[in-house]
């Protein structure tokens, strides 16, 4: 993914420890999120904190940042035992956090955001000039280019992240925690970020990088601490490990990182759109006249940075969002005027990008969720608008077992399942109906490595069975390894089509809207 950079990674002996967590345990009810976790961060070190979703990484960092109180365990900063009761305590100790979801106020300027809560004052009022000056100085010192007067709302995600980092530095952070920082970045932006991090550690900062992506850490970290089921499994030197070994430590078993793609017969177009224009929820045009055509037996990947119209495109194809202009075809028939329910009945499956607010009714049981779309069709429903829960439950039990959902108890509340199992439950519902075409939007977002492997295998199986699959993903590796063709979306348009062997650079340029100018229409 990212060019491998060899960092020092030498023995840590002699270098002072800036942070040490010892025997930290945190339970929520009967769930142990952190079990006797110990971790050491040295000055000038980039420490990767690797673990699957739900392994306890975020809980641990929230304890460090004072958002949770540990049941037991001690924290040392610069060798001194400290109590961190709230984020203010953490900031005072020089700990800064860059959250996965930014905590910026969009209408305010960069400088205003950076000083917010710790404003330089002149008399009683905010000294905006000093705020701007200090932002400029900070920006220059660490090579984090920002315009202090720009409105945050107008900035790209990568620059917003820079502002978040500056915000922590403004508060004199010496220990920086970054939670899944690359989730929203293009490959080039990721490269820039890593460059920044190197400069920060060269300046004496220490960094903890939380991620569930294996490849990322190899290029940038010195050491990697792996957490599984709330426990520290191991801490390894980055220079002495590789992806396979890390995956094994993280999951606890052998995993196939790259799925084998078999041959497949490509047939007639099954899902197609002609010049569709779609509005976003705010009323802005999100999709500007896009053509796509997915044929039987192929996976068409849609790459792009989040927020470039992918969600709206998927919803318009699925029938949950209005198409303003253009046409949608399913298996050769126009379905532009049909709703989601009718398109589903005609053989369209849709794995939505947001499983908690769209894919599942969290407070429904699994059997109700399994029938979320087919409750109104036989054998689940009969005359007089009746539905038959018994049949629904029985069918759900079969589906859950077939798709390895755990627990497979149809009476379990959907919201009680882990992310990976929720996703499998959605897959079970969407794929079991033998659809003709499948829209899979970020099917592996936030799920663990084991579930990713399973989901990828399922999609490839569907491909071999001759289904047409539209795969929308923010993960380049996923798009490349599964797709037969890849189109890139930028600013609501399809800006180019490449093969599955396209390089990071090719894709990255297209994703940043700097492609060869292949129009959407």
């Amino acid at each position, binding site marked *: 993914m990212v060019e491998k950079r060899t960092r020092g990674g030498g023995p840590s002996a002699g270098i002072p420890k800036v942070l040490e967590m010892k025997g930290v345990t945190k339970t929520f009810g009967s769930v142990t999120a952190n079990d006797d976790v110990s971790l050491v961060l040295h000055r000038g070190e980039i420490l990767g904190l690797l673990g699957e979703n739900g392994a306890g990484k975020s809980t641990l960092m929230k304890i460090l940042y004072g958002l949770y109180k540990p049941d037991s365990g001690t924290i040392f900063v610069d060798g001194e035992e400290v109590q961190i009761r709230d984020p203010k305590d953490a900031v005072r100790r020089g700990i800064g956090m860059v959250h996965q979801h930014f905590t910026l106020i969009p209408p305010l300027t960069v400088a205003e955001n950076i000083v917010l809560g710790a404003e330089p004052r002149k008399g009683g009022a905010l000294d905006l000039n000093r705020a701007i000056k200090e932002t400029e100085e900070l920006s220059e010192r660490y090579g984090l280019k920002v315009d202090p007067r720009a409105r945050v709302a107008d900035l790209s995600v990568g620059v917003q992240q820079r502002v978040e980092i500056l915000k922590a530095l403004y508060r004199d952070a010496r220990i920086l925690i970054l939670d899944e920082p690359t989730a929203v970045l293009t490959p080039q932006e990721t490269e820039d970020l890593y460059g920044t991090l190197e400069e920060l550690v060269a300046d004496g900062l220490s960094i903890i990088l939380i991620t569930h992506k294996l490849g990322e850490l190899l290029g940038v970290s010195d050491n990697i601490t792996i957490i599984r089921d709330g426990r520290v499994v191991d801490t390894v030197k980055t220079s002495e490990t590789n992806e396979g070994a890390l995956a094994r430590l993280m999951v606890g078993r052998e995993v196939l990182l790259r799925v084998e793609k078999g041959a497949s017969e490509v047939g007639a177009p099954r899902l197609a759109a002609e010049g569709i224009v779609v509005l976003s929820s705010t009323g802005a045009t999100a999709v500007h006249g896009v053509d796509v055509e997915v044929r039987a037996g192929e996976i068409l990947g849609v790459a792009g940075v989040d927020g470039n119209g992918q969600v709206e495109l998927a919803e318009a194809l699925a029938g949950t969002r209005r198409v303003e202009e253009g046409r949608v075809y399913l298996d050769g028939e126009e379905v532009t005027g049909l709703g989601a329910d009718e398109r589903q009945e005609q053989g369209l499956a849709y794995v939505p990008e947001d499983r908690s607010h769209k894919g599942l009714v969290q407070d429904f049981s699994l059997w109700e969720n399994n029938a979320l*779309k087919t409750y109104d069709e036989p054998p689940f429903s009969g005359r007089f608008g009746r*539905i038959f829960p018994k049949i629904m439950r029985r069918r759900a039990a079969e589906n859950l077992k077939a798709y390895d959902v755990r627990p497979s108890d149809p009476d379990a509340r959907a919201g009680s399942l882990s992310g990976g199992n929720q996703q499998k439950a959605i897959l079970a519902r969407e794929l079991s109906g033998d659809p003709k075409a499948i829209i899979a939007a970020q099917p592996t977002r936030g799920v663990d490595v084991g579930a990713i492997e399973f989901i990828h295998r399922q999609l490839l199986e569907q491909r071999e069975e001759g289904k047409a699959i539209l795969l929308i993903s923010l993960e380049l590796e996923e798009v490349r390894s599964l797709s037969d063709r890849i189109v890139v979306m930028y600013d609501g348009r399809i800006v180019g089509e490449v093969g599955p062997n396209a390089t990071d650079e090719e894709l990255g340029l297209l994703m940043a809207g700097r492609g060869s100018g292949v129009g959407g229409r």
Partner: protein
Amino acid sequence: MTARSGSVFGRLLAGAGGALLFPVLAILISFAIGAVIILATGNDPLAAYSALISGAFGSPAAIGRTLVNTTPLIFTGLAVAVAFRAGLFNIGGEGQFYIGAVTAAWLGVSLGFLGPIALPVVLVACVVTGFLWGAIPGALKAYFGAHEVITTIMLNFIAINLTVYLALNPLRGSSLVPGTENVAAALRIPVLGFGLGRANLGIFLGILAAVAAYLLLWRTKRGFQIRAVGLSPGAANYAGIPIGRNTVLAIAIGAAFAGLGGGVEVMGVYGKMAVPFVSNVGFNGIGVALLGRNHPFGVVLGALVFGGLFSGAQEMQFQTDVPLSLTVVLLAVILLLVTATKLVELILGKRARVLTSGTRLERGLGQ
């Protein structure tokens, strides 16, 4: 996650047991707090509570009064509960109840010539007018974004004043007591007898209505849609379930129950719509639904608690120096505990969290 016991019945019982435990605890705690208040006012809590209970259930006459109090609350409780399943707060039960009542008072007189067969016609008409009245805030919410709490409250004033106007003007009866003409005796809902006083078959209509609401919510496509919309509009939209239509229907169906309740009150208890008419049944329906955890069967039990407290309070005031208003305190504390689940967790400790989780009843009974 769910407790699995052998039979469907066992599962139902386990679910109901878990769901009941929490409201019962809330009632017990509120009685304990009430006892302190009674003591503080220099009275004997044991004497007061035994008078309360005997006033509610101690004799056929007492039971009769309790049933008369309970019946309308079942209907207005259902009005809240059904809408709540779609994620909507129907505060308009009072007005919807009045609309049903005036419909019955009008048709009960004008269709009197048909004899007893007109009773079902009258009651169906109450369902229809309640439904249509409820469709107004439903449509305002679904298609114009007007918040249902505001519109249903406002429509209460319109409904109450409109029906009072109708009862005192075009429908004004000849009796000295202000209100409508008496409905034809043949159309009245038969009383139960057994010394139960004015208690009538309306209580069974209430229970039937609860069963109907249950079947609607858990055994029909419409109910599936309403519940999906209530729990997750995003997922409902994703599944192609129309949110607007279900919003209108959920309030309207709830209002139809309240309308029927108004009709049952007129045809069963009073035989006319007197002015002033019974008040607060709509608002108490909110408390009934909360106590019943917005489940139709819970609503029946909640209505019985409210109904029993209201009739028992009279006896308590009569026999001891404890005033009627103590029941208001008791109800307030019960509702406070039922709604402020965090408070109960604070009192009873973390273990109580299991009891306060809102979906238990639904999972236990809704299968």
